């Protein structure tokens, strides 16, 4: 099974990446090459094998529910493209 140009558009839409027509064609070829390479794992028998999401398994450690970070609003916003009064600005969403 290989990806069509429409598949590539759908995936890039899901990934929230704008895609030019020329780029979509090129990506379709590259993605299909990569997917046909990874396809080889389908022939491996993995019946009953527990998936391994992390090298050493186990549950992730939880921390105590207490304040560990101070409010550093200004420093944390210093790289934002557009701010006003300590808020991030985005194009108008609600009319």
């Amino acid at each position, binding site marked *: 099974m290989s990806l069509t140009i429409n598949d590539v558009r759908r995936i890039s839409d899901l990934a929230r990446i*704008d895609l030019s027509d020329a780029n979509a064609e090129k*990506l379709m070829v590259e993605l299909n090459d990569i997917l046909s*390479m990874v396809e080889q794992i389908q022939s491996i028998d993995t019946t009953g094998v527990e998936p391994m999401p992390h090298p*050493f398994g186990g549950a992730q450690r939880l921390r105590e529910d207490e304040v560990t970070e101070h409010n550093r609003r200004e420093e944390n916003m210093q790289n934002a*493209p557009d701010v006003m009064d300590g808020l991030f600005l985005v194009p*108008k*969403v609600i009319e």
Partner: protein
Amino acid sequence: MTDLTHSTVAELKKLLTAKEVSAKEVAQAYLDKIEKTSSLNAFLDVRPEVTLKEAEEADKKIRSGEASPLTGIPIAHKDIFVTLKWASTAASKMLENYMSPFDATVVERLQNAGFVCLGKTNCDEFAMGSTTANSAYGKTYNPWDANAVPGGSSGGSASCVAARIAPAATATDTGGSIRQPAAFCGVTGIKPTYGRPSRWGMIAFASSLDTAGIIAQSAEDCAIVLSEMIGFDKRDSTSIELPPEDLTVGLNAGVKGLRIGVPRAWIDKAEPGLRDAIYKALSVYESLGAVLVDIKLDKANLGVPVYYIIAPAEASSNLGRFDGVRYGHRAKDYNDLLDMIKKSRDEGFGPEPKRRILIGTYVLSHGYYDAYYIKAQQVRRLIAQEFDAIFKNECDVIAAPVSTDAAFRFDAKADPLSLYLSDLYTVPGSLAGLPGLSLPCGMSEGKLPYGLQLIAPKCEEGRLLGTAHAYQQATDWHKLVPAGY
């Protein structure tokens, strides 16, 4: 006095402790050389006044007797670690001029140990690649041959250590990004066990694989610096709960009786010159008392397909945070919020992160999740189990190539797939979370370094470094310096 910049970390430590040189003199020597060798493009951000200020503070501590043993030794950081005083870009246009509000744990620990920071080294964008040509700020060159790639993604770190413009440089390894550039540049690099150094403040690529490590001139230097980097960090939820360890303790343990696993099928697949260099290195080990054991790696051959499902899947999730709202690049022209996000991501990401985000998005999407992502995680377990069984029953360390050849030319591998396939020897250990080390073991006819990879069981960095140190006590490959540096 001979050129200071040719000193090892161990030698600088002696010179500084004996007060034969000041930290400022050392820092200045490296800063001068960084400027002189700027055509290598190994560094992305150098701020001499900040470095010199750190060096002056180090000298103050040395004078007042408050210094630690490593105070005043310079180090460079891969631009994947966030730093307060230098820009942190991940070599991406997405993070151009980004100033972090905090230091990564690794950066903070090395600073507390007394290291003076020289600046940030170039890499593949978001650490994705094996050439450093994927940097948005231009490729880094291999000091051995300007037409050859330095490897990647930590190409800047490997190149600057090889060119002796930093005595050591931090690096990160997700699928080979420390070991392969170290091999291509003729230096020593170690990727420790996943979870031993903290990931806090490392710009995330694939969180179940990303591991910080170090590139230096020798295993001894790697041991000195890595000892300061590892240790439990409560800010990293996958940090291993082990106390700090002095990895220099076992350096001289020798290799008598050490069982080295030899996957002949892997070694024989390498280019003949590299293959012979590896067998020669193995005979050095035999003469030092090690025992060679033939081993078969079977499931590990599935490393590349498994890796190129899992790593892009995690990358697509991690890189979702770049939306042009809180930080990062924002497009100039757009219609609405969604259009702004899509255009910002299109403009901010280079081709390789985009490819990986799209692959990852696809394998995680409805209807494909089980067939790709879960299946890959199952095969990942089979690979890890294979290593476990080999280390339990057959050998103490595995010796393998790092790559199929010495450094290739920038124009040699144009399509992404052939680059992905060249990761075959490094990704299996990454998937299993195992420590791996690369050390120089010869030179090709074209005068490019050959690398040998050593892989050890979980948390056996000491064994790995001791094994490499034994070889470096018996050979001089790690002492070669590229002409003109």
